């Protein structure tokens, strides 16, 4: 039994916002790491968590300056917690950036995908792809014939803009519908469907469960 199981069992309505945020952040991090495509940017959640981290840092700095030996044990706990939060966010951001870097042009040109990025991620992606293009251009593309200089060429049967593989297999655990009942999952393009109850673990194509994950009826593991 790991922390996710414990978190999953807790009823979402009676626990305080802080705990729920941690649970959401952990879930967002796990999902982001295992999903093949980028997921919507959790703006509200990030804002709350960052705000709390800021406060916590202030608190720690405040208490360190008073340097009371009795409070130092509490401080260590606070700092450890802080480091863990920072790690979660860092890893979360980095895995998003890794996806953005792998398919920069796809993320910038495909409107639904682009809408999932945060403001600063779009800036980063735009700047990065400009840089790369300029680098290619000055290295060799500049001397190419006019017609071959593009990076988003779709001629010759090969699309130069590559996207993530949405049919990759993922491990998923059912969380149940609003009342905890099993939910129906249809695999798109086939006549296969299955019922996913709370706590069930499946290996399925990402494309089949992305809707359920988005609605919070299932989580990736």
């Amino acid at each position, binding site marked *: 039994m790991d922390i996710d199981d414990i978190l999953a069992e807790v009823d979402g309505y009676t626990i305080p916002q802080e705990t729920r945020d941690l649970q959401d952040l952990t879930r967002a991090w796990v999902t982001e790491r295992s999903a093949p495509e980028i997921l919507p940017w959790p703006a509200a959640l990030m804002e709350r968590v*960052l705000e709390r*981290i*800021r406060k916590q*840092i202030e608190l720690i700095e405040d208490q*360190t300056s008073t340097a009371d030996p009795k409070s130092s044990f509490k401080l*260590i706990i606070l*700092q*450890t917690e802080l*480091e*863990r939060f*920072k*790690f979660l*966010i*860092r*890893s979360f*951001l*980095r895995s998003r950036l890794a996806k953005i*870097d792998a398919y920069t042009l796809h993320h910038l040109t495909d409107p639904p995908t682009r809408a999932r990025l945060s403001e*600063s991620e779009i*800036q*980063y992606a735009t*700047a*990065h792809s400009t*840089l*790369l293009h*300029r*680098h*290619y251009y*000055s*290295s*060799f*593309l500049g*001397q*190419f*014939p006019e017609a*071959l200089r593009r*990076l988003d060429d779709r001629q*010759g049967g*090969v699309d130069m803009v590559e996207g993530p593989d949405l049919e990759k297999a993922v491990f998923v655990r059912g969380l149940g519908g609003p009342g905890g009942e099993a939910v129906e999952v249809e695999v798109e393009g086939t006549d296969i469907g299955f019922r996913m109850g709370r706590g069930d673990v499946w290996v399925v194509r990402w494309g089949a469960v992305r809707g359920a994950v988005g609605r919070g009826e299932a989580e990736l593991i």
Partner: protein
Amino acid sequence: MYGDLGTKLVQHAKRTQALAHLPPYQTEIVRALTREVRDLDKDVNTILAPYAGSFNPSSEPATACSVLVNHLCMRRNKRCLLAYHRVRAEKMEEMCWRGEDVMEEQLPKGNGEGTSMGEGGSSEKSSLSPEEEEYVRQFGDLLSAYKGQWTDIDLTGSLEPPRDLFIDVRVLKDAGEIQTEYGAITLTKNSQFYVRQGDVERLIAQGYLQKLS
């Protein structure tokens, strides 16, 4: 032969993926490939010139075929070049993320240990092309700009989940004095400290300190 150089370049790229450092930039091959593309393009133009834009592929299958082969070769060369540069760019980005000084790392370390430290290095030949050096510089700027929005998080920090707040480190190279929340520590070679991980992460990445498990 068409395509031979492209294959060579892709093989270089493949090898680069497995190496810890960047091998020298293949200026010659890249230049020859670009020249090949330009020659092919010229060929296509000379072949098509007498038709003055009214070329009908079905009436002249032989000519159409040679034009097609030339076109495919050009596209393939372009793909090979793109792949080669992309692999190298990714490698350089990875180094930027780890906080290494890419320019310094890439100088060939031929003349013994110890002497290579701290030299300007402009006299030695770097394994990066001038364009790549420019790219690294700009990517570094981009990275610090993006990182600047996340000052509390320290994006380039360790991606290992933190276990302990404090760790044992051994000093491998003199690093001078550092400031921590618990006062200043002077890091002299071969000494050992019990410090907060967040304070020394960068020094570990740069090779000044070694983490003891």
